[in-house]
């Protein structure tokens, strides 16, 4: 069912060595490779046949669902529309991710439009890793869109990683928060060579006492380019914070544009942004502990991009 290449991609994006236990939906080259539902997690193809609808029953506790996508077919550009409905009082982890293997000159790509509705008092952790490999010259494109609607006192944690090999990425993250809801987004992107990555974030804080924290870390090597644009708009007594740090190396370029929009006098919004090379004192410290210059650089980047 899974060949060696599939296994490599699945391991990179979803930490899977084999077909997982519990609910899963694995998509390969635009087609369903395998699906398993559980008593509390239902997965079905949507009405338009353009994606899946995952429905998590209320009060589901400590369950997870894997929904990885793998691509290894030259010239394929796969687009999916997935919806997630997380029931009241549940606590679940959703592990997504897309792995592309490009062996030829034709481009390959995936666009995943994921819409989450998190019902009151539910808690969801969403982990999405993007990875591309292969010796082909075809461009690998990954354009994910994540829309999160958090109902009263719901909590979502999104861990979004682009770990290497992706030539072009345009990410869109959108979120809307009701009363007491909270959101944490951790986004980590590594680019090298001539890779381009854009991240557009729009977070709307509608509810009283809701809070959002967007933490983005970027590492840029070679001639790569990354743009990070984040807007946090507050309509109530709430808290929002944007933290975006970039380590820039070689001839890479970066635009970082955090934007805070207060539409209520009790809104509390903050941001911190930095772009810079690796600090000398960090390198000196690790070298004084016996690491070489290159080892120290790698260790600092590894820690910087660590999400969990």
């Amino acid at each position, binding site marked *: 069912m899974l060949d060696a290449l599939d296994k490599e991609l699945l391991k990179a994006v979803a930490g899977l060595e084999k077909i997982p236990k519990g609910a899963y939906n694995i998509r390969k080259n635009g087609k369903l490779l395998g699906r398993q539902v559980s008593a509390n997690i239902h997965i079905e193809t949507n009405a338009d046949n353009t994606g899946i609808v995952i429905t998590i029953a209320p009060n589901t506790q400590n369950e997870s669902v894997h929904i990885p996508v793998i691509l290894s077919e030259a010239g394929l550009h796969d687009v999916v529309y997935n919806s997630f409905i997380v029931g009241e009082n549940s606590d679940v982890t959703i592990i997504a991710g897309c792995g592309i293997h490009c062996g030829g000159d034709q481009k390959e790509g995936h666009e995943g439009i994921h819409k989450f509705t998190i019902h009151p008092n539910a808690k969801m952790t969403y982990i999405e890793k993007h990875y591309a490999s292969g010796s082909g010259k075809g461009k690998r494109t990954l354009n994910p869109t994540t829309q999160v609607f958090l109902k009263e006192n719901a909590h979502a944690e999104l861990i979004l990683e682009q770990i290497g090999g992706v030539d072009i990425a345009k990410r869109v993250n959108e979120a809307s928060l009701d009363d007491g809801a909270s959101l944490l987004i951790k986004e980590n992107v590594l680019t090298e060579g001539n890779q381009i990555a854009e991240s557009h974030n729009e977070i709307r804080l509608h509810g009283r006492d809701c809070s959002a924290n967007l933490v983005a870390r970027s590492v840029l090597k070679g001639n790569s380019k990354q743009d990070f644009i984040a807007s946090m708009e507050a309509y109530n007594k709430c808290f929002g914070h944007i933290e975006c740090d970039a380590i820039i190396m070689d001839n890479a370029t970066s635009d970082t544009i955090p934007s805070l929009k207060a539409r209520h006098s009790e809104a509390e919004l903050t941001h911190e942004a930095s772009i810079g090379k690796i600090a000398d004192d960090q390198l*000196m410290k690790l070298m004084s502990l*016996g*690491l070489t210059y290159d080892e120290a650089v790698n260790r600092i980047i*590894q820690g*910087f991009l660590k999400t969990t």
Partner: protein
Amino acid sequence: MLKINNLSFSVENQEGSEKRTILDKFNYTFEQGKFYCITGPNGSGKTTLAKTIMGINTLTSGQLVFDGVDITNLSITDRANAGIAYSFQNPARFKGLSFRQLLSIAAQTDDESTLMQIVARVGICSLDFLDKQVDSKLSGGEIKKIELATTIARNPKLAIYDEPDTGIDLWTIGPMIDLLKKEQIAHHTTTIVVSHNKNFLDNADVILILKNGQFVYEGNIDGAMPMLTDLSTCESSDFCEGENDVRCFR
């Protein structure tokens, strides 16, 4: 064990027009297993000397011989692997590195029991420190304790501590001195502490007072005290040189 021959260190002035010499043809030999305390006025070159030994500053001229090996042209990494360890006055803070990870790099092992043993050996850090992130959220005292622990974890032949007591609470200074003395005796570690703290001076085998890039005193606390307690303001700096040098220490 560490021989410094004719070491000079100069930096460009901010204007870039001329160089400012911080250490000028400096000579000294640190002996194996002794506890040295270097003190002196601000700007006298204490940190510069310490960083030059570690290789963080590149010397302008001169030679460093460590355990009979010329280390003048060795990198920081090579000096670290030769047995020199350095505790920074202002330790680096990292995003995404915990104390456990830093200690693991220092000790070259990720074996949990070994790391616990090091923390127990250091004493001044509690075990729950291991999970702390070495980032900007740490207090000044906490990061200095971590800095000291990573230095000790190297099991160095020569340990240099640059103002280890900065930010450390009064209750910890005594145990910190006891720790450095214990390390000196148990492992025969040559120890150099840069400090203004009399508690360190009291415990040193040799006190060195640095002024204008030269040691102007070498000896015990009794001999150093008159110089260290002299608070008079020098009014003779215009003519105090050569034969007229009164060798004051401020």
